[in-house]
């Protein structure tokens, strides 16, 4: 039975269970003179039966699915002839892949040896046995639990409390997702990064001036040995984010000030959503826009002024990233500016200040912590932004301060190192995880500071 059919059967069974449980509750109710003599409403008896039918079976199903492939693979490997079993791990994996491809009817590399074909047959056999066993176990379990709960139903069964307990467990489980995700992120990048730092010392990675991660895969290959000094990558990231902030902070802040202090209601109602469209446009669109329109435009201007402008200049990527970040800065600043109490403005007006003086000397200083928090969040976004720089910035790691040259960023390097074929024990691939770890840590620190500052500020005026 395919897994979809199995799930559908299981759902159908639990619906049946629901009806059986409810009906039994009703029949008890009738016998004792009305449903009000039951402990819970009949719905809860039905739900209890349905939940007991579906939940354990689904759990077994999930666990089975997770471990099925690896267990079958292990059985297959242990049955392979001696000379294949003792192959190095990478070769063995290729053989297992061949077997799996043969099973699913895909194209297999090279010609098929009889023992491989035999193993594939064996694999298919095991798979169908496993499938059959799973179906039998799950359906038996589901039916048995329906029967057991159905037997247990009586007017004193505290069905509602049971159901609510199950629900509470589910709610708690869902709320821990964030913890598990964070742990997952940290562990997944940390382990690979540690493996990387065993090959390349941390100091070389953080202080090295030369980044060229291409390295020879085989010992006899001609190629560079790979250099993993990340300084050029960091400076590139900083330069592009810096350009983005130079664009976004003045534009975003001035827009926010105008919208919250000067604009009338009608203008605000039109301009604010329009500005927020900028935040809703996918970054891949900005990347294409940067590469297609802005970069050639900047190059043409540069050439007409006699400058040497790269077609993947940091300026183009930074400019477009800045445009993307404008709405973040403006909506966050808008919030904090609006939170400044009107009494402070009135006080300034009463002393004879013009609106602009009030804003510059009273409102903005009062809102400054919040604005700084918003800008920090925007910086963390700029550092982590990927698609714009992948499409519009360069790949080569230049250590330069000239914004007209091509530079590369952390995210570009992660993408180029990990997209395409890769092996998981080369420092080249692991370097991506080291960069990812760094990116995560830096954005995490920025976010924590920003969130703390913003929260603190909000409390101040509440």
């Amino acid at each position, binding site marked *: 039975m395919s897994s979809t059919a199995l799930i559908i059967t299981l759902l159908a069974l639990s619906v049946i269970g629901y009806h059986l449980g409810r009906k039994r509750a009703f029949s008890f109710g009738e016998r004792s003179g009305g449903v009000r003599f039951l402990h819970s409403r009949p719905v809860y008896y039905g739900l209890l039966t349905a939940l007991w039918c579906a939940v354990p079976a689904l759990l077994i199903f999930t666990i089975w699915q*997770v471990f099925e492939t*690896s267990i079958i693979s292990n059985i297959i490997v242990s049955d392979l002839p001696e000379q294949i079993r003792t192959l190095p791990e990478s070769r063995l994996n290729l053989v297992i892949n061949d077997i799996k491809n043969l099973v699913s009817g895909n194209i297999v590399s090279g010609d098929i040896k009889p023992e491989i074909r035999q193993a594939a047959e064996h694999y298919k056999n095991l798979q169908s046995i496993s499938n059959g066993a799973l179906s039998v176990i799950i359906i038996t379990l589901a039916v048995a639990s329906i029967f057991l709960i159905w037997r247990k139903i009586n007017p004193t069964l505290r069905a*509602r409390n049971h159901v*609510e307990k199950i629900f509470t467990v589910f*709610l708690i489980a*869902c*709320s821990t*997702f*964030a913890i598990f*995700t*964070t742990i*997952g*992120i940290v562990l*997944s*990048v940390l*382990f*690979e990064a540690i493996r990387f730092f065993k090959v390349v010392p941390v100091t070389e990675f953080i202080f090295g001036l030369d980044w060229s991660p291409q390295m020879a895969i085989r010992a006899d290959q001609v190629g560079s040995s790979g250099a993993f000094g990340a300084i050029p990558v960091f400076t590139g990231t900083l330069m592009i984010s810096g350009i983005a902030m130079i664009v976004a902070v003045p*534009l*975003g*802040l001035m827009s926010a000030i105008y919208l919250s202090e*000067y604009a009338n209601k009608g203008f605000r109602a039109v301009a604010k959503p*329009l*500005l927020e469209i900028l935040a*809703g*446009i*996918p*970054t*891949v*669109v900005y990347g*294409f*826009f940067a590469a*297609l*329109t802005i970069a050639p435009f900047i190059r043409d201007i540069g050439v007409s002024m006699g400058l040497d402008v790269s077609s993947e200049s940091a300026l183009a990527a930074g400019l477009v990233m800045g*445009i993307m970040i*404008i709405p973040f800065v*403006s909506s966050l600043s808008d919030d904090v500016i609006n939170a400044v109490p009107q009494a402070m403005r009135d006080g300034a007006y009463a002393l004879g200040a*013009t609106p*602009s003086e009030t*804003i510059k000397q009273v409102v903005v200083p009062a809102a400054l912590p919040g604005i700084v928090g918003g800008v920090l969040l925007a910086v*963390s*976004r700029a*550092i*982590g932004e*990927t*698609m714009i720089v*992948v499409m519009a910035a360069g790949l080569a790691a230049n250590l330069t301060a000239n914004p007209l040259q091509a530079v590369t960023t952390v*995210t570009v390097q*992660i*993408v180029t190192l*990990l*997209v395409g074929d890769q092996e*998981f024990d080369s420092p080249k691939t692991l370097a*991506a*995880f080291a960069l*990812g770890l760094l*990116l995560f840590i830096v*954005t995490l620190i920025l*976010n*924590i500071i920003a*969130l703390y500052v913003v929260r603190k500020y909000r409390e101040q005026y509440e």
Partner: protein
Amino acid sequence: MNKEASDAVRPIDIITKKLHKRYKAEKRFKFYGILAIFLSLSFLLLLFVSIIGNGYSAFLQTYVQLEINFDPAVIDTGNLASVNFPGLVKQTLREKFPQAKSRKEKKQLYSLVSSGSSFQLQRMVEDNPSLIGKTEKIWVPADDDVDMLFKGYIARDVPESDRRLTDFQLQLLDTWEQEGKIKKQFNTTFFTAGDSREPELAGIMGAMSGSLLTLALTLALSFPIGVAAAVYLEEFAPRNRWIDIVEVNINNLAAVPSIVFGLLGLAVFINFFNLPRSTPVVGGLVLTIMTLPVIIIASRASLQSVPPSIREAALGVGASKMQMVFHHVIPLAMPGMLTGTIIGMARALGETAPLLMIGMVAFIVDIPSSFTDPATALPVQIFLWADSPERAFVERTSAAIIVLLAFLIVMNSLAVILRNRFERRW
């Protein structure tokens, strides 16, 4: 009488003079504000103009008319797969233009018509075997260079060596055009085909169904989990250190760069759980993790806006806490939760970077039909096409962006409508 006093500057003059300056500064400041908004909005306009200007022409495609003789001698009905349909097209072209004599000229002639035309003929014969033996006038797609020429992207007046089409090809095309055998019509291929190396045969259907499958999984997982987490944190959770940690984590995850989620997906789902690469399953899981914080934060805000009186009333008539939440609070908070979910889905639809990490960037021609088929997604398709050197892919990339933006606009309008219609202010 007192000379010194009349010469002394009166305070009022200083103030007037300064006032003038201050009013000027005021005007300048106001102008900067308007300028900032104007600049931001003009960037938005420039973006839309540049994308639409580049992309609208991709919705039309140049077709040429061929008079194909479905020669029974060539077409063997027993084995259609082995019939030389490309040869049939070439023969038709040779008969049409006998002036192409040399090998080079013939090659140039053949390249005017898309290589997909032979598949079109094959499909026609498969669907309608009675065609065999007849001569039919058939519109087949032109090659992308021809398409670009008729859309005005290839200049005719540059030297031959700088042009994708030779003088000989231009001459043939002019004859064809005079006979009225070249036309532009709506490009259905773009909406029904999967990816292709040939721009005239490439479409977004594969990417769209990939996106649809991925988003379906994302929605199915992130909505229930997100709502459940929000309900627990808002209604049931005790105020303690543990819950504080959970909340800080959620807020942080909302601001973690999306590429980091891609790394997580690569390390956990693909390397650890051995899920198949490039598939909507992994894409959906990664996007679920990415959108969950958005949904949780929106749902919590929505739950907070339900007034306590509702809760007290429900508890007052004897509802249990769970009944109060599920029967009264959640239904009232639902519009806000749905709005947050739609916005989260719109973000997930436009997300590219994490999908690159889990290998959804492969060149995939087939249209995916299940969660474990290799697939791309719409934004990834845009990324892939943006890298292609052919001029015709520029307009197709822009057209795909137009489609993507259209989807996003629909989703966001839906969210706004939902908010305006159903959200109650207490």
